[in-house]
């Protein structure tokens, strides 16, 4: 973590990490720190259509990056490549200095737009699915219970997913992703299917969990205000290239409607529409 922060040449966005560190002492099972990611010359084609052409990006360990762009700009593809769900035609992804792992490792986890819980498994068992394969089977449920506590659903473990609300289900999906303490969390429009009020609630919630666990977060969203509210940095993808890469130097928790908030939102939106 420290190494990553000092190694980076980008303007460091200091976050107050003392609170998280203090809690970590009390709960030794909570992993801290994320992992640095470097992407060089990443290219992806589907048939004749080039979706990504030579993307160069690097994320610092523990950074919260939002990737925005219009539908079909390749932002979700970038995320799938990052997690090893698809193979690139060219370029390289290194996570923590290592070549990107195949899907199924413990370093990275994915949150989809829909929670995708297995409806025939109880909430606790759904979360336990996320536990690392290296953890013995009888240790997975206690870990899952801890993860459920982290997302504020400690008492719902025995229920079927079908009785939970949309927001609660997405929190269970988050717990399932966090139970293995990933160093990289990829989120593909995780709040897109929720109503406006639940969305804002969940954004604050996501921010708290990220602060607590310190993973590197890569959030794909089409909602610029969500990106400004959550991210350290906003990357705009347009035409398969990085069109804008802007830091969000606002103190957390961020106040929507403040002048700085609006300025950054305006800057990203202007660039988004300029590409039209």
């Amino acid at each position: 973590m420290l190494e990553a922060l000092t190694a980076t040449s980008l303007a460091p966005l200091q976050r107050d990490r003392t609170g998280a560190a203090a809690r970590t002492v009390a709960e030794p099972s909570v992993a801290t720190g994320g992992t640095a990611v470097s992407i060089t010359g990443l290219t992806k084609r589907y048939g004749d259509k080039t979706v990504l052409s030579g993307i160069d990006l690097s994320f610092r360990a523990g950074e919260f990056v939002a990737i925005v762009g219009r539908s079909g700009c390749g932002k979700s593809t970038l995320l799938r490549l990052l997690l090893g769900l698809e193979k690139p035609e060219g370029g390289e992804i290194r996570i923590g200095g290592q070549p990107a792992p195949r899907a199924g490792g413990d370093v990275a986890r994915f949150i989809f737009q829909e929670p995708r819980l297995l409806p025939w498994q109880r909430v606790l068992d759904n979360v336990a699915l996320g536990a690392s394969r290296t953890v013995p089977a009888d240790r997975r449920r206690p870990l899952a219970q801890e993860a459920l506590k982290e997302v504020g659903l400690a008492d719902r473990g025995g229920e079927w997913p079908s009785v939970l609300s949309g927001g609660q289900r997405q929190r269970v999906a988050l717990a399932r992703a966090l139970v293995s303490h990933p160093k990289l969390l990829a989120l593909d429009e995780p709040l897109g299917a929720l109503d406006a009020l639940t969305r804002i609630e969940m954004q604050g919630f996501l921010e708290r969990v990220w602060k607590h666990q310190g993973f590197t977060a890569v959030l794909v969203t089409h909602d610029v205000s969500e990106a400004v509210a959550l991210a350290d940095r906003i990357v705009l993808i347009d035409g398969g290239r990085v069109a804008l890469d802007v830091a969000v130097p606002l103190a957390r928790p961020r106040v929507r409607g403040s002048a700085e908030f609006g300025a950054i939102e305006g800057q990203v939106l202007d660039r988004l529409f300029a590409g039209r």
Partner: protein
Amino acid sequence: MSNATQSIEAGGFAANAGWSGQLWLPGLIAAASWAATAVVTVALPDVVPWGSAGLFAILTGAGAAALVVLALAVPRLGAAGRTIVHYGPWFIAVGVWFFLWELTTAKFGWLPKPFFSPPHGLLAVYVAEWERLLICIGYSLRLWGLGFFSGIAVGFVVGVALGWSKGFSYWGMPILKLIGPVPATAWIPVTFYFFPTTFHASIFIVALSAGIPVAILTASGVAAVNRSYYDVARTLGADSRFLVLKVAVPASLPHVFVGLFMGLYYSFAVLVVAEMLGAKYGLGWYIQFQTAYSGYANVYATLIIMALICAGLVKLLFVGRDRLLAWQKGIL
């Protein structure tokens, strides 16, 4: 007859009203219809004697007395009382049915012996033949149990393989679709050659009739599982074993149960034929034996037993399904 129509009208009215003060009116009407059956059974002579008329009158009379007691006690019985009230119109219908059945068969002889039997004719069969029928039930359940359970076990495994593996499906699905519609009984000549005893051949036929619908529906269930579940399980590091056992199989269970219900009905229908193959006991064997001697009352009595056993097994299967598929409650 006028008695009966009155009962029906009053029953319909009472079913709407449900209660009449502290008295359960449909219960009294039902008691009247049952009592009428008892009276008719002893008061009028049989055209041709059937036996057990006295016992039938005692049973229906006792039923009538019990209904009178219930009519008075139901308001104080709580949940059980509400269940009884719910079935009130059925108590009336059964009483009226017995009454008409008695008159048209034994008393007036409009539906003659041996093709038809009055209710006390069936009772006479149970009284005279209960030992032999019990043995037959035991034999039939043994054959059915061995056939059904081995059939659904093989059918389920084959179905999962067909739904999961493309190669298996390529070769297996056309064959299954081809032999699926062939009646299980058509295999009898082949089974005689392949199986050491006729009992094994019978088991095979029952197993085949139960296994094929289970295999087909399991295969379609496994093949229809939402791909996104596999996707998410893979990102969490799940192996193929997990994907089959924890994703594909549970997801396909609703389909599998449809197959099980079909297999249950088919296997029961086939049971009668399977017991043609050199059986010495069994409900199917008994039915054929009695048909040959025009013992139709015995046939009806046995059919009732088979229907009750089948209905009981279906009920059991429903209970099992509701337990295993409890997760569906919020979804459906």
